[in-house]
């Protein structure tokens, strides 16, 4: 920039000569210079503003474009970040206590159609009906040639069927990958596993959701991708479960029962080793829930936890053990069980109108005397009886980890009269589930601690609070053993396993009130070996009739006890329990000495 002097001589000298003031020239030049400087500064400032503006514009534009891209593109996992857990995002498997598969996933395909892409909709529909006879050809033709742009044809197809659909060769028939839940053992442990179905369905994937049993109870765990490689370990034992189901099914058929359930529980951990409810179903093709009729007749009904029954005399032992625990009686105290006995206006009778006379407490259990147990309960009193039953958990739904357990709410009288005290002492007037009964027997078996049944594998014993004294529990076990050796459950003797248990035969209540004459629930609650119980087994048959004799026999001693005995004979060796008597001598083996 050329700098013009403020007082250039070339102008000053003529101005002086003309008598003008050189100051004016200087002022003028100064003004010009200031204007130039101002213009220059303004230009620079404007330029800077422009640059800044452009910079901000691009910065915001970049952010905006990036946001737009993120919003419109498919989400992708970051490629370079650490991973490994995401290799398998499938629903976790379910295994038994020894790691054998109970439920897993299988890759399969779903078949869908996009009619606008179809070449020959009518031929495609005909081809599909040839492969899947259950489809309706007319409906397919209507769907394919109508306005629909998309429809699902089949939810699960096998590889062979997929190949056959490929062979139709229509570009409008497409396949979507699916993970389906597979229960390789079929109906085994069906009520525990429940079943699964598809939730939200997309073309690329569909979520698998549990609909019942542990599949629903542990749905969150099973669906968590972090648990993809960590199967859910159940306490069930596959072989024991299979043997128990087979024996119980045979028993149910022989005893002409319409339903049956059994629960086998570890007495120290509360682990349920096997739980069977018959009739059952195949969780691979779970039938729909019945909309009419009695829910309890459906194969979906889980009798072991949902079925609340009056379990009859099987509850007598709790009156006896409490009376012994409170010090009111000892097992050998004599109680008069002769009639008549009237409580609250009702007559308390014995089975088939018998009269046992004077019996010891132990014999009351062995002979299953109603009046004897009633008298014990009256000595205990309603309040203490309620407290004791509550501490054993009889007033709560079974806390078992399958979704159905919540619906098995026990029933007990709201007004606990003296009559209730007596009838409940021998198992009438209060309904509970076989699973709950098994847990209560486990308390006697493990020396008096409360245990909660669980379907999950446990690492160590999980004994709860003490509810029965050690000595009382021991004497109760001796009474239960005596029931088998010389009482109502004499068919329950299994050589080598010292079974102890109590029978229970309860008339079924009519829906409108009162009881059926010839419909009963027969229960046998057992523990083995009785001197040091490891397991508790409860077998309940619904409406059994044993018809080998002159007249039909329905009592538990004739129906559920032989079934339970057969079951113990089958499963105790599988559980690794060695019989404690001499094994049967084997032929062709001679003991020799080598000297």
């Amino acid at each position: 920039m050329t700098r013009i002097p403020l007082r250039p001589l070339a102008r000053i000298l003529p101005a002086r000569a003309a008598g003008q003031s050189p100051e004016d020239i200087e002022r003028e030049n100064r003004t010009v210079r200031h204007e130039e400087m101002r213009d220059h500064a303004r230009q620079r400032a404007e330029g800077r503003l422009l640059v800044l503006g452009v910079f901000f514009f691009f910065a915001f534009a970049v952010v905006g474009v990036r946001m737009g891209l993120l919003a419109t593109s498919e989400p992708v996992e970051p490629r370079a970040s650490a991973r490994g857990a995401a290799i398998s995002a499938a629903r976790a498997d379910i295994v038994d206590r020894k790691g054998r598969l109970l439920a897993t996933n299988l890759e399969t395909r779903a078949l869908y159609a996009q009619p606008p892409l179809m070449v020959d909709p009518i031929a495609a529909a005909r081809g599909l009906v040839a492969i899947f006879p259950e489809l309706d050809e007319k409906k397919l033709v209507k769907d394919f040639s109508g306005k629909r742009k998309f429809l699902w044809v089949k939810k699960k197809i096998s590889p062979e069927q997929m190949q056959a659909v490929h062979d139709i060769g229509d570009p409008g028939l497409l396949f979507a990958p699916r993970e389906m839940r597979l229960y390789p053992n079929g109906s085994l442990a069906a009520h525990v596993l429940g079943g699964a179905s598809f939730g939200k369905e997309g073309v690329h994937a569909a979520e698998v959701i549990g609909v019942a049993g542990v599949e629903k109870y542990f749905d969150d765990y099973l669906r968590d991708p972090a648990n993809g490689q960590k199967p859910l370990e159940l306490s069930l034992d596959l072989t024991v479960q299979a043997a128990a189901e087979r024996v119980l099914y045979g028993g149910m058929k022989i005893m002409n029962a319409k339903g049956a359930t059994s629960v086998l529980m570890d007495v120290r951990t509360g682990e349920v080793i096997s739980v069977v409810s018959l009739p059952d179903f195949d969780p691979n093709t779970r039938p729909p829930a019945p909309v009419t009729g009695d829910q309890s007749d459906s194969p979906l009904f889980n009798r072991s936890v949902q079925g609340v029954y009056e379990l009859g005399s099987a509850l007598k032992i709790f009156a006896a053990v409490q009376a012994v625990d409170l010090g009111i009686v000892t097992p050998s105290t004599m109680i008069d069980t002769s009639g008549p006995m009237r409580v609250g206006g009702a007559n308390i009778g014995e089975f088939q109108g018998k009269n046992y006379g004077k019996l010891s407490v132990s014999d009351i259990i062995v002979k299953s005397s109603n009046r004897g147990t009633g008298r014990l309960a009256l000595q205990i009193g309603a309040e203490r009886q309620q407290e004791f039953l509550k501490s054993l958990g009889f007033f709560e739904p079974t806390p078992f980890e399958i979704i159905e357990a919540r619906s098995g709410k026990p029933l007990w009288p709201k007004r606990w009269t003296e009559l209730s005290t007596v009838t409940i002492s021998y198992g009438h007037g209060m309904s509970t589930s076989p699973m709950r009964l098994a847990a209560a027997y486990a308390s006697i078996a493990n020396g008096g601690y409360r245990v909660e049944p669980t379907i999950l594998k446990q690492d160590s014993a999980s004994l709860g609070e003490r509810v029965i004294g050690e000595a009382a529990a021991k004497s109760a076990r001796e009474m239960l053993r005596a029931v088998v050796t010389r009482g109502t459950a004499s068919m329950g003797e299994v050589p080598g396993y010292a079974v102890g248990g109590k029978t229970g035969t309860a008339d079924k209540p009519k829906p409108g009130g009162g009881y059926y004459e010839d419909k009963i629930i027969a229960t046998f609650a057992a523990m083995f070996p009785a001197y040091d119980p490891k397991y508790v087994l409860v077998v309940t048959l619904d409406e059994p009739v044993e018809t080998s004799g002159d007249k039909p026999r329905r009592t538990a001693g004739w129906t559920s006890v032989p079934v339970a005995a057969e079951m113990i004979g089958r499963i105790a060796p599988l559980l690794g329990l060695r019989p404690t008597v001499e094994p049967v001598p084997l032929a062709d083996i001679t003991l020799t000495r080598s000297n």
Partner: protein
Amino acid sequence: MRSVLYVLTTLSVIGLAFWAYRENYATQESLSKTDKLYSDIRTAYARLAILKAEWAYLNRPDRLRDLADINFDSLGLLPLRSDQFGRVDEVAYPAAPLLDIANSIEVSGTLGDDEEQFP
């Protein structure tokens, strides 16, 4: 001096750019390699899952029971019962080996008329 500095700086920028370029491509190659490995692992897991499912299906108790029934003649399999537990002392000791019959010494005979027996 300054121009040397400029040249060196320019060269180092070119060098770094080249290095970054190569690193970028190397990274992308490793990423696609890991992607492929991961997809291989996924395929292997899927196959493993199918094999496990098939194993479980073929070993389901119903099928094994039926097979045991069908092949009862050759296998004679029965459900495990309590009398099948044995004790260690029921197992026989191995039979003592027979002594070799060699260099046998005759220990019996008949006495002659002129021989007499000594204790």
